[in-house]
């Protein structure tokens, strides 16, 4: 009886396989259901949380930033769409939309002054000036979020890090490595000279002049002549926090 030949044996084996498959499906289903349930619970709790802290999220930038972080960790993007639960509950989409529009306005108004490159701090303080009287405080984090949403429009908005500073670029001009290095050197005093670049970066004067000329042509720099040493200084409004003057004076 050791061998179990014949049709009967095969049928038994097939039945066993079916049984196993059924069991496996059941287990998987139970797991999925559990997951779904957990997700639903989680979502409703996140919603409860948001509902409960609605005012904090709206008014307190630090709280808002942490809320965003929490959402990001669990893969929820409250800014993904302007419709739906999050937008309706928090009006948060409108908030960033509004900031985004204001950021575009500021960048345009100061472009003649800074060539379309402005440091984030400066942008924020201009934004706050513009929003004076509005209830919600705006943080740099909010600015960055609004800008990241602007990027979707393909309008060439980008945040770049140069040295210690974050700069917001609102023109399509790409900065190469040399340009970045120059702007980084300029952060110390607000300006650079050809000499200084040769010394600090071990460049040839040709390389320095080439890069500076490009930056000038793009409107990112301003020349300053008439110094005793006879050396032309190249100033960068984007690191000097001087662009705020451009807005109202233009």
């Amino acid at each position, binding site marked *: 009886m050791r061998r179990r030949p014949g049709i009967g044996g095969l049928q038994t084996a097939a039945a066993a396989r079916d049984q196993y498959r059924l069991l496996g499906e059941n287990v998987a289903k139970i797991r999925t259901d559990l997951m779904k349930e957990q997700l639903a619970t989680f979502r409703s709790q996140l919603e409860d949380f948001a509902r409960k802290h609605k005012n904090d999220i709206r008014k307190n930038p630090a709280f808002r930033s942490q809320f965003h972080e929490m959402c990001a960790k669990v893969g929820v993007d409250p800014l993904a769409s302007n419709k739906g639960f999050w937008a309706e509950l928090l009006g948060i989409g409108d908030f960033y939309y509004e900031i985004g529009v204001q950021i575009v306005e500021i960048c345009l108004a100061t472009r003649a002054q800074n060539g379309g490159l402005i440091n984030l701090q400066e942008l924020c303080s201009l934004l706050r000036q513009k929003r004076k009287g509005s209830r919600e405080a705006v943080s740099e984090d909010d600015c960055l979020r609004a800008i990241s949403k602007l990027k979707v429009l393909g309008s060439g908005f980008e945040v770049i890090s140069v040295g210690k500073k974050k700069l917001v670029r609102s023109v399509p001009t790409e900065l190469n490595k040399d340009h970045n290095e120059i702007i980084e050197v300029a952060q110390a005093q607000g300006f650079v000279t050809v000499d200084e670049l040769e010394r600090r970066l071990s460049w040839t004067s040709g390389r320095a002049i080439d890069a500076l000329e490009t930056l000038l042509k793009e409107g990112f720099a301003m020349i300053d002549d008439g110094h005793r040493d006879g050396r032309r*200084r190249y100033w960068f409004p984007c690191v000097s926090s001087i662009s705020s003057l451009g807005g109202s004076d233009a």
Partner: protein
Amino acid sequence: MASTYSGTTTLVNKEPDSFHFPSIYQDYPPFFTLQTTLSTRTSQLKKWSRLIQRYCKFHRLFRLVISEHLDSPLFNNRRLNKRLQYADIVTVLDWMAGMEGGGRTEWLTKAKEGVFVYWRKPEEWANLIRTWVEDTGQKGSVLTLYELVEGETTEKEEFYGMDLDVLKKGLAALAKQGRAQVFGSEGSEGVKFF
């Protein structure tokens, strides 16, 4: 008028008054070198134009002779040790006189040594006076330019003490539109508004 400028920012040039210079003038040396990049230069010229107009309005200057202002705080920032050079001042004033500058200056002579500065344009001045004449029920009567600008009745008006040449330009413009008529000879002109 003065209250408009009483900012809290520290002033560069200690004048008896307190004209408030914009921060780009106070803190940004390249403002004093004319820029070579067109867009940057245009933005700079606009700012100089605004500054010159505001400065002249504050001090009620109707004319600006360059040589007299080379060392004035307007063009010479002692704290930064920066100044706008003579040739660059000419460029700025020339730009202001042109289309782009909106006709905010007019050269006194072809030699380009000085300008009328129009922080109010001549027509605006003439219209100010016309409004005052109407408001005081003197429409249709002849008034001398002297009494309009130096008379006791206009002491509190903005046009009191204004430059007569600027006024005459304005009145001439109104006359062309048929809204005023200027009589008399040089030095004793009168005007009638319709």
